[in-house]
């Protein structure tokens, strides 16, 4: 490559580096968010805050709720992952759903124009919890469920704090 070519490349790299240092701007408009696949940001792993833990608990008819348990088990790695990893990619997509709900709650309209449970992201996480519970247990009438998002404990001794707790829902 010629000296002038290297110079142009260096200037471009500098401009890109400066742009990359600017704070991330989230696209808010729903129509644009739907086609955000066309507007890549390429800022992989820049947000070091961990996704909150999705926990659920269930209660049978007339009984109190049982203990909270994690909804999303860690995916298992295998050699075949390179060619075939539907479970792993699904797990990543489910974690993205949780992140989406957290983001929506952060932007939540506190004026009361819309309730949290009316958010599509809330409904999707509720669907996720329902699907997981349905896959784990026999269907039964009168089962109630509740889910919550909790920050992951930074140490093994600290207790995770709750980000949000859902209403009670039927299975």
């Amino acid at each position: 490559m010629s000296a002038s070519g290297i110079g142009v490349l260096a200037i471009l790299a500098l401009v890109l580096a400066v742009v990359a240092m600017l704070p991330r701007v989230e696209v808010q408009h729903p129509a644009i968010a739907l086609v955000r696949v066309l507007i890549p940001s390429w800022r992989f792993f820049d947000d070091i805050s961990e996704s909150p833990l999705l926990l659920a608990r269930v209660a049978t008819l007339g009984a109190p709720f049982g203990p909270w348990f994690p909804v999303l088990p860690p995916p298992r790695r295998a050699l075949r992952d390179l060619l075939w990893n539907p479970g792993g990619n699904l797990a990543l997509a489910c974690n993205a759903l949780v992140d989406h709900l957290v983001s929506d709650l952060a932007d939540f309209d506190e004026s009361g124009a819309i309730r949290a449970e009316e958010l599509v992201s809330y409904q999707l996480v509720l669907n996720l919890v329902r699907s997981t519970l349905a896959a784990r247990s026999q269907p039964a009438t009168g089962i109630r469920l509740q889910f919550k998002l909790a920050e992951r404990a930074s140490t093994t001794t600290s207790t995770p704090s709750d980000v949000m707790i859902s209403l009670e829902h039927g299975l």
Partner: protein
Amino acid sequence: MSPPLGLALRWMECIIAVAIIQGTLELFAIRTTFADDGIWRWSTLRRELRWLQPVLAYRAFLGVLLVRLLAASLLLSGVRGATVPILWVATLFVNVRFLGTFNGGSDSMTMVVLSGLVVAHVGAPWPLLVQSALLYVAVQSLMSYFIAGCVKLKNREWRQGTALRSFVASPQFGAPEFVRQRLASTAMARTASWCVMLFECTVPLALAGPTTALVIISVASVFHLGNVAVFGLNRFFFAWGATWPAIWYMSGQLE
């Protein structure tokens, strides 16, 4: 020596076709999650996507996936014509069905490659247009590494190695135990972090010449295989792999 224009284009077509076939088969494997009682059930999505019901409701969406699979298979076997525009539209529909993307960056890079291929096919009679399409794909790919490297360099936790250790330890990725144990050491985590940042920031040097490009593409393939093993990001391997012929080709043009 870099490959001729036609060969680079063909390699891009083949790799992205494999990426799309693989991704579509994976979606078929988890189709219960977007069925009428699944996570992404239409009754929930309808509020935002009602006007797309004819293509995105469950059964219609299975049809979109089938069309996508057939078009990618045709592209792999060398049929051009309308296959790439069909793939572009079908892939966009798939991402809209998941309210933006299903698999984040790999979906975006797939669209970048398909956009480049659409322009290259439409502009086939004009070599300059085909070259511009490959340049677009190459620049997007180089930018993806470079920007990801810059944002990490800016971050103190990445420079200290604690960010990488935290991602690897996170149960959401299910990284293998031996990797977690290795990166539990501060020195090892810091070394691995700096290797990642150094690699990502120096990827644009691939344009210096075909030999450098091949070396960087080789390192990139190892980097992506590592991401598959640690984070399970298999779709990234194929989506980025489809951009490497464009980088290799452009490295010869700018030499």
